[in-house]
């Protein structure tokens, strides 16, 4: 039975745009044609994307539907602290500019598809590579599940609020379509659909900024109302001194974590060369500008008098109230498609990790290129099925907890992956111990906070410093890695061979001439 309060104008526009993206997703397999039986082609689109496509792909990859739903929700509930996302997306690009071209070059030189491939080559340790791979898979899985929450929110906004199967069916259909075109087209699908997604997102953001503040009496009024209402929720429009350390460590830790997430690395490795990545580090901040405006939707919702306990509904309710129906359909489609692009890349990146660092390493060491790509395609389906089951079967709160943990965990691959791009000084055994210590520390801190927050009140002397648990954990991680490197070297524990050389990190390899 169909829910009776369905918004047909919105839903029709939404369906049209969704159908458009589906067609684009399937056609993508013919775009810049390559042999999709190779993991390099299916999982990295042949590493040939230029500046323009990479801009859409990474923009579509990093600024997810969950961002558009969760960030305004956080600002709506807590105020200024939610704006840590701004310095976070400011500092992430200088790091990308300097660090990621090195990863691209060494990966191109040696045919690495995943960060764990690199770690294996650098440290001659399949165990350390396994640790990096599993961390990546476990961190990215709840992220995929949360993209579904973004779709659920806009479906609810359009009145698709049935119970049982009617509630979940649209979601299942959306993800089935996504799974099918990711299977057939690989990374080409999210790259091409990202063009549609980002165009719709920019249109929505521009419209929101032109229409909503004008209806609400200007930004001055919006900030005024927010500053009066937020203290009743223990929030504030202005950051207080006690929140400084949380704000900064959240920003810095999240920036490094973002660049270590498998889906980010997949997006980056699909670029044509290191210079393409650097050009994008200069061009991608345009998305951060949009992010600031999107965050402000939280204050606009307060000023508009929106009152909801379900934080994910803040943005859908605001759009419903402010936009004409047909345009709400466009905005909702932007968010839903904004969920599909990153979900697709995330599934591909998890599939790449499983195929390269678990299947080929432990299950079938003689795997042919075709077997590799077949396994990856199959795993991408499994991953999406897992995400759907997760969201339907388990309270959403657990996905949020796991997402919090995922951010903490992924940062623990920093010493091996980013450290390894600069130095071979660390001992592989020490990196493994450091990783273990960092994972344990971060998980302990999150558990002490009942997984509800990732800001741990660290007591130094008699002063409390609230600090992002991921940052505290990675400091423990680095410290252990240093101490045990000295110990293992003293004990003459074999350090393994380095299969890379200094020039691999600095010199752009020849571009594949297969256009």
């Amino acid at each position: 039975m169909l829910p009776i309060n369905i918004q047909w104008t919105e839903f029709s526009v939404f369906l049209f745009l969704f159908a458009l993206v589906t067609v684009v997703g399937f056609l993508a397999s013919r775009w810049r044609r390559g042999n999709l039986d190779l993991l390099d082609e299916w999982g990295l689109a042949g590493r040939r994307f230029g500046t323009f496509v990479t801009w859409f792909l990474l923009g579509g990859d990093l600024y997810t539907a969950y961002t558009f739903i969760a960030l305004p929700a956080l600002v709506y509930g807590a105020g200024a602290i939610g704006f840590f996302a701004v310095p976070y997306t400011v500092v992430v690009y200088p790091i990308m500019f300097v660090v990621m071209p090195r990863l691209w070059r060494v990966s191109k030189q040696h045919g690495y598809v995943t960060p764990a491939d690199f770690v294996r080559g650098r440290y001659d340790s399949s165990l350390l590579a396994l640790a990096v791979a599993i961390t990546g898979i476990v961190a990215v899985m709840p992220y995929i599940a949360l993209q579904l929450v973004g779709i659920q929110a806009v479906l609810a906004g359009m009145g698709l609020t049935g119970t049982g199967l009617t509630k979940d069916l649209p979601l299942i259909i959306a993800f089935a379509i996504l799974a099918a075109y990711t299977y057939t087209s690989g990374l080409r699908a999210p790259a091409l659909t990202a063009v549609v997604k980002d165009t719709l997102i920019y249109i929505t953001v521009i419209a929101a900024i032109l229409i909503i503040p004008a209806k609400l009496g200007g930004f001055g009024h919006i900030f005024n109302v927010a500053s009066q209402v937020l203290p009743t929720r223990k929030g504030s429009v202005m950051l207080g001194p006690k929140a400084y350390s949380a704000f900064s460590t959240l920003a810095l830790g999240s920036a490094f974590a973002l660049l270590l997430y498998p889906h980010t690395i997949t997006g980056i490795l699909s670029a044509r060369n290191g210079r393409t990545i650097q050009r994008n580090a200069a061009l991608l901040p345009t998305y951060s500008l949009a992010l600031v405006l999107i965050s402000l939707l939280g204050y606009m919702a307060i000023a508009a008098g929106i009152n909801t306990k379900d934080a994910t509904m803040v943005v859908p309710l605001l759009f419903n109230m402010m936009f004409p129906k047909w345009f709400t359909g466009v905005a909702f489609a932007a968010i839903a498609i904004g969920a599909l692009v990153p979900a697709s890349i995330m599934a591909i990146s998890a599939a790449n990790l499983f195929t390269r660092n678990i299947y080929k390493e432990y299950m079938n060491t003689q795997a042919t290129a075709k077997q590799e790509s077949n396994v990856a395609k199959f795993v991408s389906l499994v991953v999406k099925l897992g995400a759907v089951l997760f969201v339907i079967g388990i309270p959403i709160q657990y996905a949020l907890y796991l997402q919090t943990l995922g951010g903490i965990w992924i940062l623990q691959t920093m010493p091996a992956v980013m450290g390894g791009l600069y130095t071979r000084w660390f001992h592989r055994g020490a990196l493994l111990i450091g990783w273990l210590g960092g994972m344990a520390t971060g998980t302990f801190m999150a558990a002490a906070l009942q997984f509800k927050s990732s800001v741990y009140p660290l007591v130094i002397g008699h002063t409390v410093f609230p600090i992002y648990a991921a940052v505290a954990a990675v400091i423990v991680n680095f410290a252990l890695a240093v101490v045990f490197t000295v110990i293992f070297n003293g004990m003459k524990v074999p350090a393994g061979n380095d299969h890379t050389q200094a020039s691999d990190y600095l010199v752009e390899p020849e571009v594949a001439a297969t256009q």
Partner: protein
Amino acid sequence: MQSSDRGKGYWLLIVPFVATLWPPFYARTNPVVGGFPFMYWYLLIWTLLVGVLSAIVYRLNHPKH
């Protein structure tokens, strides 16, 4: 061939870290511009400045032919 690390002007990329990760610099309300408290328009401008700085560093290392 370009070397990514001995590149020119990389120090410029440290500026955004100092400017945006130290809230005492900007966690205040005045001056308000266009209704935005200082913290908000200051951080908003930095989302653009960081791109400009990266573009400058890129151009220093990859001059136009």
